[in-house]
């Protein structure tokens, strides 16, 4: 197996000298490591000669970047207008209850799931909608949640 640092270095090398590279670079690093660890950000700063404050600023500005480890499956609960009027809050409640998440938690203790709220997934005609990984599930009712989540527990 390749040394993880090697893979990280490979990404950094590819982006060196390219303008406007910070966001796609961070996206790839997050893809590789699952989240952006503080030490990694510092390492990127040294290697790429970009101030750590700037990197941290970008990483905290965009909702896609995560500074904490996330679960194997990311559940995006759509909170768009169409979903909102079709009961997105009860769906979110059902997901959180099924995963037994406490008020301030968003990742399950076993590291299997992370729940996120997103603005709009663009599947408004199927509202309410959630997305798990790249799969979209629409026309949901709270009752359907446990069956869907069980598929990802295997």
């Amino acid at each position, binding site marked *: 197996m390749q040394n993880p640092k090697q893979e990280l270095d490979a990404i950094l090398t590819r982006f060196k000298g390219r*303008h406007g590279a910070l966001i796609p670079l961070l996206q790839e690093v997050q893809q590789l490591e699952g989240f952006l660890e503080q030490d990694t950000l510092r390492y990127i700063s040294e290697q790429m000669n970009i101030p750590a404050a700037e990197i941290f600023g970008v990483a905290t500005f*965009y909702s896609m970047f995560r500074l904490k480890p996330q679960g194997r499956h990311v559940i995006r609960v759509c909170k768009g*207008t*169409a979903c909102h009027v079709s009961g997105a809050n009860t769906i979110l409640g059902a997901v959180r209850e099924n995963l037994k998440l406490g008020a301030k938690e968003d990742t399950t203790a076993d590291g299997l799931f992370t729940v996120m709220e997103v603005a*709009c997934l663009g*599947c408004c*005609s199927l509202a309410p909608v959630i997305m798990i990984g790249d799969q979209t599930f629409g026309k949901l009712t709270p009752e359907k949640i446990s069956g869907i989540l069980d598929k990802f527990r295997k």
Partner: protein
Amino acid sequence: MEKIIAKLGLGSCGVAAGAGEVWTELEKVISENKLPVQLEKTACIGMCFEEPVLELSGKCKPGVMLGKVTPADVKGVLEGYLLDKLDYQNIILHEHKPAVHNELIANQQRIVLRNCGKIDPESLEDYEAAGGYQALRKALKMLPLEIIEMVKASGLRGRGGAGFSTGMKWQFAHSARNDKKYVVCNADEGDPGAFMDRSTLEGDPHSIIEGMIIGAYAIGSDEGYLYVRAEYPMAIKHLKKALIDAEAKGYLGNGILGTKFNFELHIKEGAGAFVCGEETALMQSIEGKRGMPTIRPPFPAESGLWGKPTNINNVETWANIAWIITHGADAFRQFGTEKSPGTKVFALAGKIKNSGLIEVPMGMTLHDVIYKVGGGIRNDRQFKGVQLGGPSGGCVPASLLDTTVDYDSINKTGAIMGSGGMVVMDEDTCMVDIARFFLNFTQNESCGKCTFCRIGTRRMLEILTRITEGKGEDGDIEKLEELAVNIIKGSLCGLGQTAPNPVLTTLRYFRDEYIAHIRDKKCPAHSCSALLTYTIVPDKCVGCTLCARNCPAYCISGEVKKPHVIDQSKCIKCGACFTNCKFNAIIKD
């Protein structure tokens, strides 16, 4: 037996509705039974509410479109259609006979969506067969200024929402003197309740690319960016393939189609920030920075991406270009109104029967859009309002349904055309809650640069939240109005300048609802849970105990077979008793 074509919609909405399984079953049935069926895929035709949608056609057979197809239906419909004995309960379109949605399509005019749901979006050959890249060939024989004049004459206005003349914008970028210029496609569709751009990107990526190449040639640019929301994985996939194919065919790259014109196009994936839909913020984001808007002037046409002249248009605007070049400005002006020519794509969602994507000529009334094309309100409930323009727009009430769909008429209502989200609301939707919903959104998405936007939206949200929780006070409405005016004045970009619109329009048209919440502590739509009371009607209650057993707060008591009572002091207003009661013995008020 004559060979037939089976075409399945595999856009995001189709896949979410189960089209993937239907595709597998189609492949299986066709190969196992050696059926003379050519299987093809396409993206979204716009009838998302009928997904998965399967279209069947043959040389000597009438084309039909079937809705809500399941894997179990596949064998029967294929064999039935082959033998001219199709028996399916949900034929949504029929070439010769009346079908439920024939009119839905007939009332539309498709320019932007001309190929969506018809061609395979991953096939350049399909796009070419539909006339694709002919406009580019024509444009390359014209002078850049001739193209700009044509776009100006068409009267095309920016479909991103603001409605600025596209031809003028191109003119500015063309006149800017610089050896390097950029063109950008704004595909950061972030409005909650809008998915027009997603469908176009997924369903016909080449139409956008062709528009951009023509635009680049016209203004004298050799490099461009497509800034796409990362939440649209299928759109990004289709675009990537389209770019590779277009380059291989010589539509992109150096010496395009044998001319001296060079153009390269990159995809930039967004990282989740609504404010990046604002053009100056979007450029900051492409440059790899925080997406914070900058002061204009200088406008992007003078100094944009990396300080170079830049022309930004949104997806729908770009998708119109090739059609205009091919058919001419006059053909475009046949549709729409004097000041808003052409068509507009809308995403119909919310409490509407035919939720999905439509394209209608400008100038149609809201009433016709909602009732003739949209099929009316779901469950035949009462129409209450329609939200246009997302977080920057407003709610238009029933009394203004005769408003025509064009930039100027919609602006008069206090809403905006926006990018085309149309969320329909019925009597169960609380307008104060909707205003709170949008403020919550803008407050979250404010980049924080301008104080009024950053803090003002938060104060407005706090007041609205209080009102929906039954803690509204006298003077709240006035405070909201005062904050709204100041936020509009004190914000740099469109996000802040329009953030108060949802509150201002609901206050203008649904003020009674605010007053009911504040003064009477009642939510007329029975939607704000904190303002509801659940009571049991003793005459109707048979004492089945179902409600008591389902109550999470254990606050319902009573003997078996005798009327029960809810302890109001403990009730958490979850509504479990109301949903579970089989005798309609519980009233929500």
